[in-house]
């Protein structure tokens, strides 16, 4: 089978985007520091989270098993993050092969969540030097439309916060893992919620775009990735690509990102709370947003772009004048006929009663 390659960005697309940036517009009509619409959803299982950011879609699933701890940290659990890029997300992604993007994403997410010690690892220990919980988070990219990292980091955090591990009891020698039905499952302790926020830099760092789309990512000189929690603590800073940037600009970005991060964390927390309430009531509806797919208002949009055509307006006015001369006569239920008035005042048109008869027949 032929190998699919990454979509090439044409010169005219590059030029067009830069030209639009000069006019302070983005292709999707957002402001420079505006983010796309976010929705977070949970599946039926614990730790299954589906996040969509604009058209980018990510599914995260947490799973756990009991393992021996690492020899360097005997009393700590294990958290492994595994980003998977399969051809479902974009045709040039290959499953089962480590691409550069995958490694970079994995590392940044690890830096953001694991190295900032957001998850309390010591609480995952069952018996020192023998048994600890090993969490594995699989992050699947379902659709790639730019800014995968933000989407993945939100999915990762929400999935971790949603996940419950089975309870364990020890009687000297043996450890017993209780099923979910037997004993209530235990939440993971999360100290703080660090989320990644990406900015794309254009024109040597003078223009900064929040939440870049796939096209903007391709055209941008560099990208600035900030991992920030709701207490405005920076956990990660990653600058990819080549761009000159003022330290002042970076600080500005950071304060904007901090604001965004606190919004995101409250969003995650409210969604988690809603899911909890739903589960208490016994309704486990997986993936709410699939059911409430929003109807697109594309027809209105089309009308908007076709509208304001001055010539047409004049035409319509003249038509209205004509109609004023006629009289509207009702004809049965839900129908009417326009009777034009002739110059001599005589009515040449007569409403036929066929319509009424056929109505009564049916």
């Amino acid at each position, binding site marked *: 089978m032929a190998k699919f*390659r990454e979509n090439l960005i*044409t*010169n005219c*697309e590059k030029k067009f985007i830069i030209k639009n940036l000069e006019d302070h517009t983005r292709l999707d*009509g957002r402001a420079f520091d505006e983010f796309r619409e976010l929705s977070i959803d949970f599946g039926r299982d614990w730790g299954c989270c589906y996040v969509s950011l604009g058209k980018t879609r990510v599914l995260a699933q947490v799973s756990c098993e009991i393992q021996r701890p690492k020899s360097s940290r005997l009393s700590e659990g294990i958290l492994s993050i595994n980003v998977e890029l399969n051809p479902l997300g974009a045709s040039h992604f290959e499953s089962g092969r480590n691409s550069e993007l995958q490694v970079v994403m994995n590392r940044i997410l690890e830096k953001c969540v694991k190295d900032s010690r957001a998850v309390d690892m010591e609480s995952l220990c069952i018996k020192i030097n023998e048994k600890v919980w090993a969490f594995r988070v699989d992050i699947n990219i379902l659709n790639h439309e730019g800014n995968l990292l933000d989407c993945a980091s939100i999915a990762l955090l929400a999935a971790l916060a949603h996940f419950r591990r089975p309870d364990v009891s020890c009687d000297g020698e043996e450890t017993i893992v209780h099923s979910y039905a037997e004993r209530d499952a235990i939440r993971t302790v999360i100290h703080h919620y660090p989320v990644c926020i990406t900015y794309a830099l254009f024109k040597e760092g003078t223009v900064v775009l929040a939440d870049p789309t796939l096209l903007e990512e391709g055209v941008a000189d560099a990208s600035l990735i900030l991992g920030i929690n709701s207490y405005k603590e920076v956990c990660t800073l990653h600058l990819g690509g080549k761009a000159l940037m003022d330290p002042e600009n970076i600080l500005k970005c950071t304060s904007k990102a901090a604001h965004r991060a606190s919004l995101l964390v409250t969003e995650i927390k409210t969604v988690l709370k809603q899911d909890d309430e739903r589960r208490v009531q016994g309704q486990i509806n997986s993936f709410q947003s699939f059911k409430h797919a929003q109807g697109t208002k*594309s027809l209105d949009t089309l009308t908007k*772009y*076709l509208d304001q055509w001055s010539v047409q307006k004049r*035409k319509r006015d003249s038509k209205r004048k004509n109609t004023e001369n006629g009289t509207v006569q009702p004809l049965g239920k839900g129908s009417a006929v326009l009777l034009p008035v002739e110059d001599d005042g005589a009515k040449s048109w007569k409403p036929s009663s066929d319509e009424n008869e056929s109505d009564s027949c049916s």
Partner: protein
Amino acid sequence: MPENIGEFVFPGDVVRDLKVVNGVILRGPGLHSHEEPNCLLVTRAGKLCFKPPNVYWVEGHFKRYYPKKGDLVVGIIKKSGNVCKVDIGSSEVASLSLLSFEGATKKQKPDLQVGDVVYAKLLSAHREMEPELVCVDSYYKAGKLGPLSNDGFVMNVSLNFVNRILDVNSLLLRALGQKYVFEIAVGMNGKVWINGQRTIDVLNLMNALLAAERESNSNIVNVCRRYLT
């Protein structure tokens, strides 16, 4: 006549009782032959369409392009040289010789850079071979073919929508043309190149086309009629 004309069909469905003219059924994309007589197997999800006397096809939101001989496509140069490699959205890259432009000689060739856009015609498309593009017709004249200016914008739409805008009876481009002054090159591969006088025009056109893509034909006609004389 099958009962489910105009309804949604899914891969694996079998369409029965097809109309046969002289022992022939013409089948378009999304349908595959079936062992039983007068039956076809559906291979894509979409709307089953029929055109008298015996043409059947499946219409849907497809984006993968399969090259077909004679199609006019918008391609992106991936590799320049004497024979350029052009991305037309198919699984194989197409080749385009720099000599197949109007008036091109060995000494005088068009200057094509990587990332430039061309409007070209498919000279050959075979399953086992690289598709070949040309930018001249059979009289060695360019017509409308050739390199496209770098001022416009290239957008991707579904293949079905391409057919809809190129339909002779379609009012969409005419209605847009009443309001905006623009150039458009619609490739059968789903790539559409637009250029207007101002960037805002191009942006509006782009959004209008994206909005129209999700609408049914009758809705588009209704809206366009309002703005056409």
